[in-house]
Structure formats: structure tokens, C-alpha cells
């Protein structure tokens, strides 16, 4: 009996093109979009574009800075220097042909001889500023050495271009992780919660005051739980399979590293799918509102939850942790993200188990809540 109804439920759900699109295609589209948007960031080394910068040197200005810049242009390809005079530089800057102007003055100004002039505060500008900063520091150091022990200056100069790696990475994890992984974790979380639509369908096919099919089913000779369980099982199966597809797509087609604990990753998505389905089921069980309204509430809940887990804006977790930590503890999508996190970044399973338990508790609460609402077997009106 269970198995037969389960199979039918599988058939029925998998033929709902729309729901399948939701759960299967949408995450894939979004994953591809992420990949496109963060394309450069995911590469092992971040390749910056050459930053165009104007260089204005007064006569008699120290050549040290110019040499540094030349080095950066030729060896590192970090900047592209336009040598020009003051007025033209300003025009170039205003027309956004260059990102900033380095002024190299002959006479010492307050903050040193070289200054940077910019019009905005974006990434290129902050790179230019750190170039200058580093130069200033070295310049200052050289000055000090010149005063304290002029003989040693040559030895010190040799050190300037040397790359030294003083720090070794502490052994907290073996998994390389980029900031962008967060987005993909959030994507998986959203993928799990896509189950809301399916969960809603369960409620609609189950409550006699919501649909005709439910009336017919309730009037039939099968017990109510006998019909509910296969439905839940089938929807969870399908949702889980969809999630697995997306995860595979991300890992194998998009080549995004989601960690090496694939089994536990799948377990997380399974629990996540259960939460998603129960969430939809819970929303569907509330009252007798129109299906379109409930659908809207479902989608809103899903998007809000994913948003709070950092789907659209990264760093959401840290932001919430500061202002409303409770959200991170009860928001299903955040919990899914966090459990993937603890799985792949923090070794040891304690934190992972904690997240999973929270998720299960949420699933149980939603489940019992929904059961309590639909337990009533006779309706006041149909």
C-alpha cells in the first residue's frame, strides 16, 4: 500500500514540470550565474587588471618612487603608468581614463613627497593606496638606516624586492576555501528549501477544504496517515534528488570545490530537503487561504531565509551574528550553510552535529505544527 502510493506520488510530482523546474533548473541557472559573476575570483590566483594611473613628477623630485612604479609596471603588470603634467592628469582622472594620480613633489610636503589623488574609493584605488603606503614605509626605513648606519644601506636595499613568507597557515583545515564558497553554500541551502512548493502541494492534496482531490481522498477507504506518509516520502525523495543533481552540477560541471566529505554533504542536503518540505507543508496547513497567497508566502519565506544566509550579499552571517544572532540559530538556510561550513572548514563533527540537530528540531517543530493543524478530521466548511 505504502509503496504503491509512494510510486504514484513520485509520478505525480515528477510530472509537474513547473515544480521540477523550480527545484532542478533554477538552482542550476543561479549556480551558472554565480560562476559567471565570480568567474575571476574562483581562479586560484586573482588576476587584476592593470590599473591605469597618472604620474606627475615635479622637476627635481626623487626618482625612487618612479623606479618603484616602473618595477610594478614591468615586472608585475600591476599598474599602467601615464606620465603627464598636472592639468592633463586631472582631466584624465575626471574622464576616468586613469584611476588615480601620483604626485611626486620636489619639496617635502606634510605627508611625504608623494601623494595619491583619487575620485572614488573602490578596489583599484585601495590597491594604489597600498602601493604608496608600502613605498612610504620603505622610504622611511631607508631614511632611518641612512641616519643610524649609512654603511648598511646597501644591504638593506637588497632586501626590498625580496618575497618572504613568514607565516605558515595554521592547521585548522585542509580544504582551500574562498569567500565565494559562501555563495555556493547559500545556493545549496536555497536549493534544499525549494521543497516548500512541493510541501505546499502535499497540504493542498490533503486538506479537504483546500481541494477537490483532497475531498475525494479523505472520503476514501484509506487512513489519513496512510496517504500522508507516502506523499511526504515521495516529495522528500524528489527534492533530495534535485538537490543532489544541483550539487553534482556545481561540483563536476562548474568545478566548484564543496569539500571532500561528499557523503555528509548529501546528508545535510537530505535534512535540508526535509526542512524545506515541512516548511511548505506547514504553511499549506495554515487556514484556508488561496493557493496563490500561500505560494507567495512560501516563496517569500524561502527567499528571505536564503537571503539571510547570504545568498545575495555575502557576509550576512557575520552581520547578523553581530546584531541578531538568534536569526543565525533558527534560520534553516543559515543552519544549512553553517553545517556545510563546519563540515568542510572546521574539522571535528561537534559543530556539524549541532547544526544538524537544530535543523532536525526545526523539521520536527514544523512537522508537528502542521500535523496539529490538519489533525482535525471534519471541517467546518468545504
Amino acid at each position: 500500500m505504502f509503496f504503491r502510493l509512494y510510486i504514484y506520488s513520485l509520478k505525480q510530482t515528477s510530472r509537474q514540470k513547473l515544480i521540477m523546474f523550480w527545484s532542478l533548473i533554477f538552482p542550476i541557472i543561479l549556480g551558472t550565474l554565480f560562476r559567471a559573476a565570480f568567474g575571476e575570483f574562483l581562479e586560484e590566483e586573482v588576476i587584476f587588471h592593470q590599473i591605469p594611473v597618472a604620474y606627475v613628477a615635479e622637476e627635481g623630485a626623487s626618482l625612487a618612487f618612479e623606479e618603484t612604479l616602473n618595477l610594478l609596471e614591468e615586472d608585475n603588470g600591476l599598474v599602467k603608468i601615464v606620465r603627464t603634467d598636472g592639468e592633463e592628469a586631472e582631466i584624465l582622472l575626471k574622464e576616468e581614463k586613469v584611476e588615480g594620480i601620483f604626485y611626486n613633489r620636489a619639496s617635502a610636503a606634510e605627508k611625504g613627497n608623494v601623494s595619491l589623488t583619487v575620485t572614488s574609493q573602490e578596489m583599484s584605488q585601495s590597491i594604489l593606496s597600498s602601493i604608496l603606503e608600502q613605498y612610504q614605509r620603505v622610504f622611511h626605513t631607508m631614511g632611518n638606516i641612512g641616519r643610524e648606519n649609512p654603511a648598511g644601506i646597501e644591504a638593506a636595499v637588497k632586501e626590498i624586492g625580496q618575497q618572504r613568507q613568514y607565516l605558515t597557515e595554521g592547521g585548522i583545515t585542509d580544504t582551500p576555501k574562498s569567500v565565494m564558497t559562501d555563495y555556493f553554500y547559500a545556493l545549496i541551502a536555497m536549493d534544499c528549501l525549494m521543497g516548500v512548493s512541493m510541501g505546499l502541494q502535499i497540504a493542498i492534496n490533503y486538506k479537504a477544504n483546500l481541494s477537490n482531490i483532497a475531498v475525494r481522498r479523505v472520503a476514501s477507504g484509506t487512513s489519513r496517515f496512510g496517504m500522508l506518509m507516502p506523499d511526504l516520502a515521495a516529495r522528500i525523495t524528489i527534492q533530495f534528488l534535485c538537490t543532489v543533481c544541483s550539487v553534482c552540477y556545481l561540483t563536476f560541471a562548474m568545478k566548484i570545490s564543496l569539500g571532500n566529505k561528499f557523503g555528509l554533504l548529501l546528508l545535510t542536503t537530505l535534512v535540508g530537503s526535509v526542512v524545506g518540505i515541512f516548511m511548505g507543508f506547514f504553511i499549506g496547513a495554515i487556514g484556508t487561504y488561496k493557493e496563490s497567497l500561500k505560494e507567495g508566502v512560501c516563496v517569500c519565506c524561502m527567499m528571505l531565509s536564503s537571503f539571510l544566509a547570504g545568498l545575495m550579499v555575502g557576509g550576512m552571517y557575520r552581520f547578523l551574528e553581530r546584531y541578531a544572532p538568534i536569526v543565525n540559530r533558527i534560520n534553516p538556510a543559515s543552519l544549512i550553510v553553517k553545517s556545510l561550513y563546519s563540515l568542510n572548514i572546521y574539522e571535528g563533527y561537534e559543530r556539524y552535529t549541532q547544526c544538524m540537530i537544530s535543523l532536525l528540531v526545526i523539521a520536527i517543530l514544523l512537522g508537528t505544527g502542521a500535523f496539529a493543524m490538519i489533525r482535525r478530521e471534519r471541517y467546518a466548511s468545504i
Partner: protein
Amino acid sequence: MAEQIIEIENLVKRYKELVALDHLNLTVTEGEVFGLLGPNGSGKTTAISCILALLQFDKGSVRVLGKEMQPDSYDIKRQIGVVLQNVAVFEELTVQENIDYFCGLYITDKKERKQCVEDAIVFSGLEDFRRFYPKKLSGGLLRRLNIACGIAHKPRLIILDEPTVAVDPQSRNRILEGIQKLNQEGATIIYTSHYMEEVEQICTRIAILDKGRCVAMGTKEELKAMIKTGEKIHLEIWELKPEQLEEIRSLRHVYQVDYREGMLEIRCSGGKHNLVHILDYLARREISFGRVYSELPTLNDVFLEITGKELRDSAE
């Protein structure tokens, strides 16, 4: 004596202000085709929902197959087939799958079910549409599918709630014939409709509902015997003086006369040879007349006389 399949006693159901069922009493005996007739909003669907234990009701009791009906009386439910007003099938399942699905909610034995599904498909004439999805079916076929889903498990009691709404005449006839066939095979049938012709055609016993009350119950002959009208005579008369109208009214058995737009309607209570008497009178008065026809009372007349309302007009 045949078993009482359904016994409803003093059933009261209120929707806030509206009283949908007002101390309804009904009994249905095994083997009947029991018709529930009434205009829309008279409480037919509500009564059926109560029988199926879908609705909470305020007072009274419903006994089905000799037992109190409860939402979890699955042994009773297994013997009932339901076809509700609205088409309730899965859009995503084919015709055959739908029937098999719903049948499977009643019958667990695989072999038996296979046979049942096959029978239901043949019964509803959907042989050529097995692999069709409901969306592709025409209105009439969809209704037949709706019925097939409800009766596939060969229930002892079949409840049909307006199964012929919005169905073309051919499909309707097929449905009605099918219902009679099911009855002949031994099923008890409850049939609701606001089409009195249908009810007259197939039902062996009829209850007329109005405003949640059962206003009359019996075979159609009994019902018709209940009212005064035994015969209705229509005459086309172009000119009729008021005093002549009075004279017609005073004829034997005539109890109501209506003259409107050249048509005279005379209602007679029982008696024989009414038409002869009237024609005789007209001949004596030398009143010329055109078409003449006489008809026996319909359920509509029954309804009209009991409630003072047209059944037909309040429908739709």
C-alpha cells in the same frame, strides 16, 4: 425487509448565520436509486458531505450501513464510492493511472484491482483514452473519468453529486444509463441533481430538499399523488371573457385557471375525462381554440406546489 443503508436523523448544519441543513431526516434502503432533488443551495452537497463525515455538523446523527459514521470508519468508507460535483483527478496522472490510484485507496489486492480498473474503463467508455492526461479530455470525457475514479472499486453504496453538470446530452445519457446499470448490479445509489428530468428518469425514490429541509419524500408516483394537480391542460384561445374564465374555473376537478397571452392553463385535480369536459364546454360556448395539449404533473409541479417556487428557475 431490505437493509437500511443510510439513516439520517435530525441533522442540523449551520454555516455561521446560514442554516444549511435544518433537522433533516432521510433513510435510504438497499437497492434503491435514491434521488436528492433541490435547487442550488438547498443543502444537497452539505448533506452528502455529512454522510461522508467530511463536515462537522451541529446536531443529529448519521448512520451508514448500520454504523455511526466517523472520519476514521474506514471499513464503511471502503464500501462507498463517491463522485463529487467538481472534477477531482490528478492533472499529472493519465486516465488509467488516475483510476488505478483512486481504486487503490480502496482495494489493496493487485489482481482484483487490475480487473476493477479495467471494468471501470470499459464501463465509462474510456478505452481509447487510457494514456491521455485529463487536460486533453473533453468536458464529457472528463466527467466520465471523474465517475470512473469514484466507482472503480465496485462499492455497495455510490454517492453521485450532480455528476452531469455541464455535460453534453450524449455523455449525459451514457452516464445515466451507466448509473442504472450499476444499480442493476446491486449497488445502492444516491443521486443528487437539480435536473428533475434526470431524477424522474432514473430514481426509484426521491427526496425533495428546500432550504435544508426534506419537504417531500417517496417514489415519483407517491410524490405526484401528494399534490393536487393531476393533469395540466393547455389551450390556445385567442379571446376569452372574464365571466367565461369564471365558468371554466367552476368546472368539475378544475382548481386553478390561468389565462395569459392567449394561452389558457387549467390545472385539474385527479378525475378522468377532464379534457373532454373542457372541450365540451368550449364547444357549447362556441369559443374557438387552437392547439390543445394535456400533460401529467412533473416533479417541478410537485416542487412548485410544496415550496411555491419554480425549481427550474432557481437552478443555475
